[in-house]
């Protein structure tokens, strides 16, 4: 890569998804994060019941993310050829897991206002 600057990376992501979709996704991710912070502040504590469900959803998010990348790239587990591949697969899985957990937690919180019984 000539200049692997953030500017180039953003240009590449915009080309991948289209300008509209890319920035819409960035906005959605920002909104979910904001909503997550909001429910944390509003509830003034982590709801452990919601957190548990969110944690349980993590493996699902991890698997979905890995399968999605494999699906769009005509590839599979047998193509992992070196340590960097395993790391990349792990990173994709972790991103999928975290994304899923935040989403599940936030959706639950927004849908049902936490009751005091859930407080630790």
């Amino acid at each position, binding site marked *: *890569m*000539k*200049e*692997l*600057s*953030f*500017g*180039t990376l*953003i*240009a*590449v*992501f*915009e*080309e*991948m998804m289209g300008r509209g979709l890319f*920035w819409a996704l*960035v906005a959605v991710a920002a909104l979910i994060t904001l909503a997550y912070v909001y429910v944390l502040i509003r509830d003034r504590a982590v709801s452990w019941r919601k957190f548990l469900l969110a944690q349980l959803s993590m493996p699902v998010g991890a698997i979905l993310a890995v399968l999605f*990348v494999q699906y*769009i*790239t*005509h*590839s*599979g587990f*047998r*193509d*992992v*050829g*070196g340590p*960097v*591949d395993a790391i*990349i*697969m792990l990173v994709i899985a972790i991103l999928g897991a975290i994304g899923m957990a935040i989403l599940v937690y936030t959706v639950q919180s927004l849908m049902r206002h936490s009751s005091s019984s859930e407080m630790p």
Partner: protein
Amino acid sequence: MNLDRRQFLALTGGGLIASQAGGSAAKAQAVKTSANIVILGVGAAGTALANRLSERLDGARITLVDARKEHLYQPGLSLVAAGLKPPGYVVSQTKQWLPSDVAWVEERAAQIDPESKKVTTEGGTTLEYDYLVVATGLVLDHDAIEGFSLDLVGTDGVGALYAGPQYAEKTWRAAQAFSEKGGVGLFTRPATEMKCAGAPLKHAFLIDDIARRAGNAGKTDMRYMANNNSLFGVPIVAEKVRMLFQHRGIAPVYSHVLKSIDPGARRAVFDTPDGQAEMDYDYIHVIPPQRAPDVVRNSGLSWADKWTDQGWVEADAKTMRHLRYPEIFAVGDVAGVPKGKTAASVKWQVPVVEDHLVAAIGGGEGTAVYNGYTSCPLITRIGRAMLIEFDYGNNLVPSFPGVIAPLEELWISWLMKEIALKATYNAMLRGRA
């Protein structure tokens, strides 16, 4: 990573607004000029350069000359010819990539007169220039292979994936039949310079992989016909490919250059150091000799003592500037520099030409240097590739040293080819990468 303020703003909050505001700020600093710039060829190089110059210059007259209305993303042809992408994957409209402030003459250039600084188009229009950029790419000389015609592609076991998206699709039909029925497969390459020297290797690897997955490895006799005594121009890569071929049972046949085919009899004739050799085939992949377009060769811009049968533009290897006409630059496949017939090289060459051209307009000298960077994600099977990057000195110049090993078959390199390469290419066309 180097971040400037604008990129940082673009990355943090309000990205879109910041990047657009940044864009107009850059425009305000553009060099004021009334220079008259003509760019011949609106492919990868011409488009990328036009976008960058239109950002850098204020008031310049930039005229693009090319009759081709459809832009071809050529690196995608290898995927089309392996049945992994439809032909439409590589096609877009030239117009959609062009900046609004350039003029596009939708004709081919017929004549260049470097003495009087004029270009004449096939329609008879005459264009004067202060600076000329030759970015016409190269021509595929299919007629040089006796007995071959593009009508044959897809029939009788004939493939020719370089010829364009429709032909790449037909190539897949012939290659797929071979991968199912088996027989002798000949994978050829020309003895001339060629764009993406990895492409013939990729095709051999992919068709072998496809036959293998179908359980037909035992039925195929794969032979890679090298034009000389090596499998790749960079020795260390050649050696790696030789080992991979050995492992996969693809036989290298050295110093065999395709001369003619007899499609009815499915027989090919090769020029070899010991005279001509005949070989029967069930599938043959033809990549024809490649040369500079006639308009370039007839205008006296080519090297007189190098590549005389191919006619590449006599350009300085570091600056891409013509050695006899300093107001002329060559960029992309047509440039007569020792390496660099890939889109990745275009990405490196374009900022160099931009630098020297803009400096010349301002009355100075540019400083940017092209080091011969060439790169090729060398696919070794569906799902894996090697990210091969090298320079004029045949040194490997990995972009991610210590992370992505250049001579290792990796999934991440395949991910790059399938997801990131086209996006990077498109960003380059827009002048943004």
